[in-house]
Structures are given as structure tokens and as C-alpha cells.
């Protein structure tokens, strides 16, 4: 057998892309460490987890770590904060960078103190050695340059020597938020700041034919009316004035009819009828094909789902000659900058994009769109900063949505009801149209200009990055053969982009639903069925853990149902199993969700629980309530009345068990629960009512329709 030489140690991906150590951290004069990740806080607690990693590796108290907000002026470029990758990418890079910095300082201390580096110890940044010699990071900071590249092969601490990682420390951003201190971009006021609002049509993609400006011009405080093709907006001294001017401008606007939208009640046939790019995602061939006794074929759908952030998107921009500074809650400051450069026709060096916290976004919402809006309106503000905030209606209708999906699974069964072949097909728009990744911009206003850019059609990330519409479509089970196919639409009447899990929620719903059906038909317990078809012990462990915790399967009671669902996010990330307990007949309420999750090393276990709980509750909301509504002209679900989400009185109890594996590299938790919870609820509905609802959301109407179909 050929012996391969061990691969040379490699730097973590983010560090390889941004090797300068000083880009990641710096010691300040007052006993602090400034840590600069390229990932941003979007309410998931990432900044705290990254601070824990840095403090651990440097042997300093957590209170000494100052986390710097990402900015294209200084931060490492870590692309976008998405895909539950921040712990994996930023965490590993910081851990490595801090370990190397620690070693550099120990060597410097050893020289200065005249002792061996191995004899030195660090406690809260103070470096001490034999004979009571001491110094510190801060004393040595002037002698050590971190303007050097990270080197591969540095070994961070072993799991057992970490003091903070693995502990539930309190999030550093929470006190500000509960005390009402201005922390959100929405609450900032720059000196001399003006307020802008953008006029947008009700009908999809309608063009602005005529604009009478007199009404708006008469509103006190008006600074400017901006117009470029179908893009129009106002700038005012006050927010109130901007709103009033916008209302006046709306009255003076004449729009074209716009472009037709699909029939919201015929989503599957719409999706299947569109031109599409078809890809074989995976194919597995059995050594010996089994004998097919019968085939079951099922279709599952999920609707367009809104990100529906609680805060309307907001941004600020200020021009200085031919340079512009943009403040944004975008998930990717560098990517937004690239798109701004395309639209504004500026070199990227002329644009600074700085992150400020916004509300939870759950994917690609209007954060980036509003940043371009602000940059365009600020052009009319003669150097003063302009703050733009979208309306609730805009947030619910002009944002990209999570893509609707139709999923068909055909399972060939042998005479014992065992699966011998499996075919999974997906019809869906692409699940990603984020900025900064193409030769054309992904920003709404860029399609509205007099010289518009072509509308971006969403694509899917490659399988190596977890895929898009096909995310989680390859079975984790040991079926002998399968064929997975994805049809990505090449038309896009309704704008879609990344929403938590991309296609993962839909695919896990479909797979776990049909498995439940096959197990039930065999008369086999669905937990036992899954365990029998899994080879990965970590997968089996989360299922066994959740079954034990939920005392699977509780005795049958009228009106109550129990269901299970399992998935490993992206097939490479966090393992999660869920059991749902539901109650109801026509109106379903989810009483309890029990989950078990394995993210490898959980840096902040309470942070993991918080993310899983949140994901489980959000998924319950998607499953029971959420569906973007539209007629043939426009999006109609433009308020919380028309797009209801789960309320306090409807929220299930949620119990989460984290299986800690400190020796295994950590992965993110934010998207692990959605698929398994969706499937668990659907399977519990069957357990309670004896009907399979295969079209989300599971509403009263859908249950009645399914009952009529099965009777």
C-alpha cells in the first residue's frame, strides 16, 4: 500500500484569506484586546462566542475583550455571516490567530525576562515565570509587531485546557438591549442627519410613468426629491417630514401595470411548468438492484416565506466628494460594497461599508437594498448623512422571500415494504441572490434606475457549500440506491433569496414525512425505523436522546399526536432530532417540542440552546401560519394581520438537550432545528388525525382538504 505523506497543516479558511494577525486582534494601551472578526452580530450571539474563544486562547478575562464591529475599512473579509458558518469560519480563525499571538508574546517575554518560554505562564494577560518575574501583553505590545502573517501548524489549546469555551457566559450585547440603550442602527443619529424614504409601486415591477412633485415639495422640511427612472425618493430634515413628503409623492405617481404574478393556489403546477436548469445532485447505484413490489409517490410543497424581521430595514449613507460611507445591518459588508461599486460606478476603495446591529434577519432581507437606497438618496444631500428606513409594508413585500418549493419523492418498496430505490426531485427558484457574488448587482434599486441592471435570477450554492434548493436532499439513510434531481427555475416573477436553511426545511419535511408514512405502513415504530437505516452514531445518538427525553412513544390519547423528525443540517453540520406533541382537530396547536442537538464543541451551550429553541419556535410559526400571499398583480400579505406569525399564547414548550462533544470542531446551530421540527409537527398531525398534510402551512383549510382527499 502506498503511504501518503501527511498533508501540510493548513490555516483555517478565514485566516488563509486574511493572514495578517493584526487584522484580527490588537492590544490597546488600557489593558484591553480589540478583536475584529469579519462576521457580524445578527442576534445570534456570535460576538460573545467569538470573544469567549479569543479570551480562552489568550488567557485573559472576557471583560478585557472589546469586539470591533465589521467594517471594510479595517476588518478581515469573511464574506457573509450566513449558513451557520460563523463559529466554523471565524471561530477557528480567531482561535488559531490568538494561539499564535499568545506564542509570539511568550517568546518575547522569554527574551525580555531571560527565562525559557516553556517556564512562563499567562493569567489574565499577565505573563509570569520562575523567580516572580512578570510582564504582560500590554507591556510587551510596543515591542511586538502583529503585522505578520499567521503560520500554519500552531496548535491551539486542547479542549480540556479551555476555561471559557463550553461554558454559558452571558451575552455581551444583552444589557444594552434590555436597558434600552441605543445599540441598533435604527437608534443612531449622526451629526446633521437627514431622513429619506423611497417610493415603491404596489404592483410587482410596475414602472414609474409620471411623477408630480408639487405636493411633496410643499411639505415643510423637504430637502430634495430624487428620481432616476422608476427609482424615486425624498429627503427631509425630519423623519416625520420624510413620511409626509413620501405620502404626497405617492399621490402624484402614475405607474405602469407591472408584471403578472403566479396563482398562489397553484404553486406546484406553476413551479413545474417554468423553464428550469436541471441538475443531478447525487446518484447512488445498488450493487444488486432489489425487486420492486410497488412504488409510492408523494408531492410536498412549501410556500414563499417572508423573513419578516421585526424591524424594517434601515441604513445610513454620507457622501464626501466621490467617496461614500455606508452604515448597514447587512450580513456581508464587503459583498455589499462590491455591489454598491457596480451600481454607483465607483472603485471599491471609495466606498466604506460599516456594520451596525439590526434586528434578526434570518437570511437575506432588505438590509442590502436599503443601503443602496440610502447611498442614492444621500447623493442629493450635499454631504449630509441620510438615514433611510423601509416601511412595514415594504419589508413584507419588496424584500426577497424564501423560495416556494415543490418536492416529489418516489420510493420503490420490495414485498416486505423495505426501500429499494429512492428518487427525489425539487422544483424551486434558486435560494440565493446575495450581493457581491456576480458581475451584476443584487440590489433592488439597481433594477429601477433609468439605465437599469438586469434583475438577478436566484441561483443555488454548490453542494460543496451545502447546496440551495437541494440542501439536505441527499438521504442520510442507507437506502441501496437513489437519484436526486433539482430543477432551478430560470424565471423569477417573485423575488427569492436566502432564508434560513435555504431548501433544507422543505427537503427534510419531504424526506421525513414519506419515511414516517413508509414506517407506519410497515407497522414499524418510526424511531426504530430511522435508527435501523442510519450508520452514523452521532445521528443515532440525537435520535436516541430525543426519544428518551420525550419518553417515546407516549400512550395514545384522543386529540393528541406525536411525531419525530431528524436531519443533519447541510448533511455536514449540526445533528438535530425533534419530537412534537400536538393537539387539535382542525386547528392545530403544538404543545411541546423536544429536541436533541449535536454541534460538536458547544462554545456557549446556552447560546446553542437559545438558537435551537428560537429555530424550533420559528419553524412552528412557518409550519402553522406562514405563507406569502399574492394576487396576480401584487403581494397582498403586507402587514402582520395578513402575514401572521406565532404569538406568545401559541408557542409550544421547548426542551433542548445538547450533546457536548468538546473534542469535535464546532458547527453552527441557527438552522439545525427548522427541518426536523417541520417534519415532526407534520408527522404528529398524522398521528393525531390520521391524515397526511403535504402542503405547508398546515392550516385548518389544508387539514380539511387532506381529510376530504383521504376519505
Amino acid at each position, binding site marked *: 500500500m502506498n503511504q501518503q505523506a501527511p498533508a501540510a497543516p493548513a490555516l483555517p479558511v478565514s485566516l488563509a484569506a486574511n493572514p495578517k494577525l493584526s487584522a484580527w486582534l490588537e492590544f490597546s494601551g488600557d489593558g484591553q484586546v480589540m478583536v475584529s472578526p469579519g462576521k457580524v452580530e*445578527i*442576534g*445570534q*450571539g456570535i460576538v460573545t462566542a467569538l470573544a469567549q474563544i479569543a479570551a480562552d486562547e489568550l488567557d485573559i478575562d472576557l471583560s478585557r475583550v472589546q469586539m470591533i464591529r465589521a467594517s471594510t475599512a479595517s476588518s478581515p473579509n469573511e464574506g457573509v455571516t450566513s449558513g451557520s458558518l460563523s463559529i466554523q469560519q471565524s471561530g477557528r480563525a480567531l482561535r488559531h490567530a490568538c494561539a499564535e499571538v499568545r506564542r509570539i508574546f511568550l517568546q518575547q517575554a522569554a527574551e525580555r525576562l531571560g527565562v525559557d518560554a516553556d517556564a512562563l505562564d499567562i493569567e489574565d494577560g499577565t505573563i509570569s515565570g520562575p523567580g516572580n518575574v512578570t510582564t504582560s501583553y500590554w507591556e510587551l505590545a510596543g515591542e511586538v509587531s502583529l503585522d505578520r502573517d499567521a503560520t500554519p501548524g500552531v496548535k491551539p489549546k486542547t479542549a480540556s485546557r479551555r476555561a471559557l469555551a463550553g461554558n*454559558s457566559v*452571558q*451575552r455581551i*450585547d*444583552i*444589557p444594552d*438591549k*434590555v*436597558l*434600552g440603550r*441605543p*445599540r*441598533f442602527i*435604527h*437608534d443612531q*443619529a449622526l451629526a446633521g442627519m437627514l431622513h429619506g424614504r423611497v417610493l415603491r409601486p404596489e404592483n410587482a415591477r410596475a414602472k414609474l410613468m409620471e411623477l408630480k412633485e408639487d405636493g411633496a415639495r410643499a411639505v415643510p422640511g423637504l430637502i430634495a426629491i430624487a428620481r432616476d427612472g422608476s427609482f424615486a425618493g425624498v429627503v427631509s430634515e*425630519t*423623519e*416625520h417630514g420624510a413620511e409626509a413628503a413620501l405620502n404626497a409623492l405617492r399621490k402624484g405617481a402614475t405607474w405602469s401595470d407591472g408584471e403578472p404574478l403566479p396563482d398562489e393556489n397553484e404553486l406546484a403546477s406553476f413551479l413545474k411548468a417554468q423553464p428550469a436548469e436541471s441538475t443531478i445532485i447525487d446518484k447512488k447505484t445498488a450493487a444488486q438492484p432489489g425487486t420492486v413490489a410497488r412504488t409510492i409517490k408523494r408531492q410536498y410543497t412549501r410556500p414563499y416565506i417572508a423573513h*419578516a*424581521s*421585526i*424591524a*424594517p430595514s434601515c441604513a445610513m449613507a454620507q457622501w464626501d466628494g466621490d467617496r461614500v460611507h455606508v452604515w448597514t445591518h447587512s450580513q456581508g459588508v464587503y459583498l455589499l460594497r462590491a455591489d454598491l461599486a457596480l451600481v454607483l460606478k465607483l472603485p471599491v476603495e471609495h466606498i466604506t461599508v460599516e456594520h451596525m*446591529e*439590526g*434586528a*434578526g434577519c*434570518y437570511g437575506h432581507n432588505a438590509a442590502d437594498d436599503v443601503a443602496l437606497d440610502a447611498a442614492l438618496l444621500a447623493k442629493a444631500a450635499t454631504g449630509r448623512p441620510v438615514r433611510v*428606513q423601509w*416601511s*412595514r409594508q415594504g419589508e413584507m413585500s419588496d424584500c426577497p422571500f424564501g423560495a416556494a418549493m415543490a418536492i416529489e419523492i418516489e420510493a420503490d418498496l420490495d414485498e416486505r415494504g423495505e426501500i429499494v430505490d429512492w428518487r427525489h426531485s425539487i422544483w424551486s427558484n434558486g435560494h440565493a441572490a446575495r450581493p457581491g457574488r456576480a458581475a451584476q448587482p443584487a440590489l433592488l434599486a439597481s433594477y429601477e434606475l433609468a439605465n437599469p441592471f438586469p434583475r438577478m435570477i436566484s441561483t443555488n450554492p454548490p453542494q460543496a457549500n451545502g447546496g440551495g434548493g437541494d440542501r439536505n436532499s441527499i438521504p442520510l439513510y442507507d437506502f441501496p440506491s437513489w437519484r436526486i434531481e433539482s430543477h432551478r427555475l430560470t424565471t423569477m416573477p417573485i423575488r427569492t433569496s436566502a432564508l434560513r436553511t435555504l431548501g433544507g426545511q422543505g427537503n427534510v419535511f419531504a424526506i421525513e414525512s414519506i419515511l414516517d408514512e413508509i414506517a407506519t405502513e410497515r407497522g414499524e415504530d418510526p424511531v426504530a425505523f430511522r435508527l435501523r437505516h442510519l450508520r452514523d452514531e452521532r445521528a443515532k445518538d440525537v435520535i436516541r436522546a430525543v426519544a428518551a427525553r420525550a419518553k417515546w412513544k407516549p400512550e395514545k390519547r384522543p386529540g393528541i399526536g406525536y411525531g419525530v423528525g431528524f436531519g443533519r443540517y447541510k448533511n455536514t453540520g449540526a445533528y438535530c432530532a425533534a419530537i412534537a406533541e400536538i393537539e387539535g382537530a382542525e386547528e392545530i396547536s403544538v404543545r411541546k417540542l423536544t429536541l436533541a442537538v449535536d454541534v460538536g464543541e458547544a462554545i456557549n451551550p*446556552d447560546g446553542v440552546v*437559545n*438558537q435551537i*429553541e*428560537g*429555530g*424550533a*419556535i*420559528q419553524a412552528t*410559526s412557518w409550519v402553522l401560519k406562514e405563507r406569502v400571499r399574492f394576487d396576480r398583480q401584487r403581494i397582498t400579505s403586507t*402587514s*402582520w*394581520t395578513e402575514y401572521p*406569525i*406565532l*404569538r*406568545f*399564547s401559541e*408557542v409550544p*414548550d*421547548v426542551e433542548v438537550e445538547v450533546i457536548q462533544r468538546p473534542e469535535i470542531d464546532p458547527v453552527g446551530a441557527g438552522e439545525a432545528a427548522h427541518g426536523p421540527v417541520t417534519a415532526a409537527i407534520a408527522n404528529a398531525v398524522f398521528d393525531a388525525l390520521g391524515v397526511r398534510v403535504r402542503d405547508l402551512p398546515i392550516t385548518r383549510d389544508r387539514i380539511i382538504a387532506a381529510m376530504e382527499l383521504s376519505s
Partner: protein
Amino acid sequence: MPSVRFRLNGAETEIDADPDRSLLDVLRGQLRVTGPHFGCGAGECGACNVILGDRAVSACDTPLWSVADKDVTTIEGLGTSEQPHPLQRAFITEQALQCGYCVSGILISAAALLKRNPSPTSREVKEALDRNLCRCGSHNRMVRAVLRAAEEMAAG
């Protein structure tokens, strides 16, 4: 411009503004009180809740004239970093939020509840918060935090 007087977080406040404007607009605009957050502008999400007298109301659909001579409490008036309200302490202890944009309105609804019902049940807390929306799914932690604060306040 007519002026409207009211007490904001205990301080006598006089503001020159159109009395038909929303309280939220005036708080966040002229008064630079940014704790109450704009969420929908239609009284549907609770992110802008303030206590008016002893009730939690959404400031976005409360006209300025209607608060004349009344007491308005925002999140800023609930507690300070030196002396946080028991609810604020409990929300930190329970890590009862994710993004936190809705939380100032939720703390206000909870504070109004505890004023009229110092020892609510979990169901009563959920009912009191039912008009507040949270998109991150932090509901259960928030309910636990409110119950914790109630216990702490009862213990004195």
C-alpha cells in the same frame, strides 16, 4: 405650533408639535428617546410599547394630544444600569432574547402586567404579551424571565 405637556419617565416635558402626530414619532424624533422601536406603525407588533398611566399601549398609534398631562414611561424609565428594574435583571439572567429589537416593548408590556398583577401565572404572562411579536423565538425565555422578576419582586 401648539405645545403638549406630559410627564416622560417622571420628568415634566413640554413639546411643540402637531398634536395629531404619533407619540412614537415625537419620542424618537424631537425627544431622541429611542428605546421604543418602530416596527409596523399600525399597533400590530408592540415594539414601540410605552406605559400610559398604567396600561401598555403602542406609541405608534397613540396621538400626541391623548397623552396631555399624563404619565408616559418608556424602557428608559424602567431602570438604569446602576438600578435596573427586576424585569431587566431577569431578562439578563435568563438571556431572554436573541436580536432584542422587540424586547423594549415586551419589557414594557410585562412591567404593566406586574403593576396590576404582581404574581401572574405563566398563562397570564403569555396573555399579557400576546400583542407583542417576537420573530427570533425567544418567547419561552421571556415568559420565564417575567415569572422570575415577579418572584423577586414578591420576595422584596
